């Protein structure tokens, strides 16, 4: 049986900055809560294509889908890896002298 579709957003890395970004109606943003959520497989494919177009246009690199849960309508990544990535930083106070 095919796996049930789970809502997803599109993420990639900004070509110049390298940081994690998410596809929103206004382009790419570091804020996952602003991301467009694909609620059907067709929508997800449409967003994938948009991501690929921005790769061709040298805006972002290595786009992929991130499965999300909806918290009051806002997308939150389901997996810890993607939660850490969406937070844009390690889970501890980094870069400080202990």
């Amino acid at each position, binding site marked *: 049986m095919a796996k049930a579709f789970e809502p997803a957003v599109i993420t990639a*890395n900004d070509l110049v*900055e*390298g940081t994690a970004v998410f596809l929103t109606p206004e382009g790419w943003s570091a804020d996952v809560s602003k991301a467009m959520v694909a609620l059907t497989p067709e929508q997800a494919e449409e967003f994938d294509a948009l991501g690929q177009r921005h790769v061709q246009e040298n805006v972002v690199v290595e786009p992929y889908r991130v499965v999300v849960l909806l918290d009051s309508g806002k997308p939150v990544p389901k*997996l810890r890896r993607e939660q850490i*990535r969406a937070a844009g*930083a*390690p889970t501890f106070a*980094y870069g400080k*002298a202990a």
Partner: protein
Amino acid sequence: MYRYDEFDHKFVAERAAEFRDQVRRRLAGHLTEAEFKPLRLMNGLYLQLHAYMLRVAIPYGTLGSRQMRQLAMIAEKWDRGYGHFTTRQNIQFNWPKLKDVPDIIDALAEVEMHAIQTSGNCIRNTTSDPFSAVAPEEVEDPRITAELIRQWSSLHPEFTFLGRKFKIAVTGSEEDRTALKLHDIGVQVVKRDGEVGYRVMVGGGMGRTPMIAKELRDFVPRQELLPYLEAALRVYNLHGRRDNKYKARIKILVHELGIDAYREQVEAEFASMDREAIAAPAEEVERIRAYFQPPKLSERASESPLIERMKSADPSFAKWIERNTFPHKIPGYVAATVSLKPIGGAPGDATAEQMRVIADLAEIYSRDEMRVTHEQNIVLPHVAIDDLYRLYKGLSGIGLDAPNKGLVTDIIACPGLDYCALATARSIPVAQRIAERFADNDRQAAIGPLQIKISGCINACGHHHVGHIGILGLDKAGVESYQITLGGDATETAALGERTGPGFSYDEVPEVIETIIDTYLDLREHPRETFLQAYRRTGMAPFKEALYAAA
């Protein structure tokens, strides 16, 4: 220390210019990501979980103060004010922007550094003993050989596209501080009947299929080392399994062929090749050797009344001396380990300010020299005993005075899921929580030598297979799960750890480590029986029972 000659300068400058042009073309859209990716990787530039990451080579872990200050400058100007020293004796910057990387590479070249061959299926940075030119029992400074291998392996036309990456370590001592037997090739400088040559080990490695290296040859004459290595790599490269990257490391080849069959092929290749054409010219070896003349240290009294007084007056200083200094071949000196494992810190991280202070202290007290260790600490190799208190005070001013070298909080940890795109679980926060639990210095000293090594995925950058206690973080259906191994050993008595049983959750790990350590403290025969000795005596059973019987 080795200094670049004209050839080295030209080579690095040309590569820097070439990469600058490649980045320019990428940003202008003339190169696609598919075209650019292999180019950036050849220059040590990865794309990680959050950002680009630049891995800079520190040949055999040796650094001068000028270089360390430049790393601090790079961290501040183009990154987020810190860097991460790795188990490969390199440094990684976690947040560079693509547009800045050409400037960073130029800044590195200014101080005779680069990021070439820190990625890709080539011969990586050759690592060595952090106590080179220090250890009393050393046959000779292994960095002479490591530098020779660096030159031979840099852009070696035959070995630039191997089946997989290839790591070589060199030690000059019987007592191994390089994890020699966990390398694709391990070279040990030995003396036989008065002649200095090499013992060559092959096929060690960690990752998903850990193996201890086997002896390939017990003695290779000095002038034949490069031809011999060339033969060993050629046989590997020709067999090279490019169909399956999990079977492409030399350890798999040696395991599948058997060491005897592999050796036979290497010896046949070695016998038929033009050895003289490959061997380094004697004058080049002498040129390199001249750079590694031991510093002119005049003998001093090995007892310092001043230091003895300060030890009595300042017990933390006494503890630091006890744990973090290592005997030097010249009386009156020691090598001092600067622990990059302060309680609550990220193992191996140093801020730009800390790098500058270490550089200043090395300039004043250690002949301008530092070594990065595979245990992610920094060694100041040539410190007069009389200077130790001043050095210690300098370090304590920036939080780098932890007296924990080789103790339970001196934890190796890979970047893990907090940084790494390959990771399956976090490692640094696990290390921090264990360190916090064992923060008390007296308790650490009472436990004695104990190495915990943590990897956030099966690739084993955190050396978990050879930790006395190894911790491997995995993903089990979206949840971090940690497998524990016991009895691993990275030294000349190398051994792979054995799994305790089912894994534990992220929250359980500190308690699990405490249970293991309490079990050891209960069963050790006397306070000098180390964790590893006790484990070897009793085996897994008592630990297993303590961990799982109650459940």
